[in-house]
């Protein structure tokens, strides 16, 4: 019984890691850049969601879970625009400056976003208004599943599935995959590389922002350091699954969430990181490109 409960706990955490990992993987795919600011864009999603919810609740003068919908759209749009702005200001001017400069620039953006959140919203814990998140749940075979868990899982898989189809089936998605392979050749094929990168920075942070709001709704409280832990874990999940690969990010997030949960459930929370990272190192030793990462031929 306990194992089933722990698997449910683990899949929920894993779904959050997967959603955030998508943002790292998409940006890495097209730019070969580790966007360290992604975790903080995710954290901003939680804050903007809080502001949005408060506005919506004040406007409609009643408390209903439907207030989440307009707030989530606000989050998606705002964080996506911030993401595009970050790319325009901090990454694009450095695109020809080697690999180290953009990474440091990304770290700088991460610190700026974190400090801004602390200075604007304050350092104390914020809680989402009561009565918005769905309550209740059911007991299945001795294991407890809450309504919020089901919502989180359904929304996460829908978002991930939609993203996968978008990248595989649409013209822009095809262009993205082309840009991921080679910027110059894509340009020769008539693809506007800057525009495609712009689209990636709309979708990645947009999804990250939504993930931030879902995490905040699910746990009910957060502070400005939220992006740090989730960002780091999701980044590791992306590497584990094979960075640059969208199904890999989902798989990596799920595996990391489940390993961590079983580690803290059957040993102790003090040991779960040791277990999780020993497994990560083993995966990387045997599959250096991650679980689903393909071995890309070296460019000459």
């Amino acid at each position: 019984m306990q194992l089933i409960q722990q698997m449910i706990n683990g899949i929920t955490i894993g779904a959050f890691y997967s959603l955030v990992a998508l943002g790292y993987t998409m940006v890495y795919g097209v730019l070969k850049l580790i966007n360290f600011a992604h975790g903080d864009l995710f954290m901003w999603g939680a804050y903007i969601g809080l502001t949005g919810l408060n506005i919506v609740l004040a406007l409609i003068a009643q408390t209903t879970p439907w207030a989440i919908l307009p707030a989530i759209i606000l989050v998606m749009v705002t964080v996506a625009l911030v993401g595009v702005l970050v790319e325009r200001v901090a990454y694009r001017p450095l695109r020809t400056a080697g690999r180290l400069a953009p990474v440091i620039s990304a770290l700088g953006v991460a610190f700026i976003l974190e400090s801004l959140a602390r200075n604007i919203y304050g350092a104390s814990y914020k809680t989402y208004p009561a009565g918005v998140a769905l309550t209740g749940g059911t007991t299945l075979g001795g294991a407890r599943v809450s309504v919020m868990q089901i919502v989180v899982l359904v929304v996460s898989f829908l978002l991930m599935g939609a993203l996968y189809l978008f990248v595989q089936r649409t013209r822009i998605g095809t262009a993205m995959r082309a840009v991921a392979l080679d910027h110059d050749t894509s340009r020769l094929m008539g693809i506007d590389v800057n525009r495609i990168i712009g689209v990636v920075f709309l979708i990645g942070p947009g999804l990250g922002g939504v993930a931030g709001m879902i995490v905040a709704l699910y746990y009910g409280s957060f502070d400005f350091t939220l992006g740090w832990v989730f960002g780091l874990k999701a980044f590791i999940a992306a590497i584990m699954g094979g960075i640059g690969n969208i199904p890999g990010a989902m798989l990596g997030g799920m595996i990391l969430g489940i390993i961590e949960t079983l580690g803290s459930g059957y040993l102790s929370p003090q040991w779960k990181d040791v277990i999780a990272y020993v497994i990560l190192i083993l995966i990387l030793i045997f599959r250096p490109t991650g679980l689903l990462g393909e071995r890309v031929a070296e460019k000459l």
Partner: protein
Amino acid sequence: MFKKIALLFLVLVLTLPLFTGCQKDAGTIKIGLEGPMTGDYAYEGQGFEKAVKLLVDQTNEAGGINGRQVELIIEDDAGDPTQAALVAQRLVDAGVVAVIGAYNSTATEPASEIYNEAGLLHITPSSTATRLTEKGFQRFFRVCFLDDRQGLFAATFAKDVLGVQNLGILHDNSTYAQGLAEHTKRYAEEMGMNVAFYDAINPDDQDFTPILTNIGAAGLDAIYFTGYHAQGGLLLKQTGDLGLDLNWVMGNACNNPELIQIGGLENAVGTYITTEPLPKDVDYPEARQFVADFQEAYDMMPDSVWWMMAAEAFNVIRYVMEETNSTDSKVMAEFLHNEAKDINGITGPILGWDEKGDRLGTIHLAYIINEAGELIVNPQQP
């Protein structure tokens, strides 16, 4: 020419404090207050200032101590150890005879070295780290209680009031929380309870469902969490989400309204908290008088127990000066170690101090969160 005038002006400005220093009335008793007036703990430091100032003004209106007026000198350490050492030296240079401070143990530690060198009477209102009194400083005292006392109280409460057989203890690996957890475990085992679960969470995490699932399966009568309120709130909320029925007891770092906000009222109701009494609940004439005076002077309640402790520190200094009719720190320290007992304190009766300078006895109370989300004194106390 301009340079010479500027230089002369500079010399004048720099030497001005020397002249003003000479003009001070030699008859006043100078007492220092060191605390975090700015920075993360500014809330507590500013409360220290309000509480101590109130008593100083009252004392001076009533004729001072032994016929001498009290002059309070306030220094801001921002809770920072480096700045604490700097301002401690300034207080020593200013010629204080006794010091109240600092708030956090990290700042109190370096400052206490300097006060000890200078031979000053030093009383901390709120620094509970055990090692502060392990250094053999003869003139250093606390008016707060060590975490060890709270551990004893929590174990007694669990056994006598809750009738616990199987106790669980959860901490977060911070110095404070781990210390409290270890003390509680030791006392619980001495009292014959079975500590059936003992583990720590990582306070950076957001999701504690894995360990809660384990706690739920451990068959505990009660679980004592010794960490801070942000994690305490999440633990309460996720206990509810998992549909578990756990009997939570939490330590004094969870004594914060945010605990209920984060946990959600429906999950927080019935949670016990072991803590020093809140100012509103200290039922001694001295305490009621202090709270009333504080409200009149500042139009607010003294919200933090540590403000009361700061007032208590001044109260003790006044008491010992009057009893010994002296401001000599050696005389005062010896009196506090050996003769002081049964003082009518603002925070309850003071039984005295042990040879290390730690306050004897305990004043902890068990609180419970009621249906309205208020922290009320639990009807049954050990």
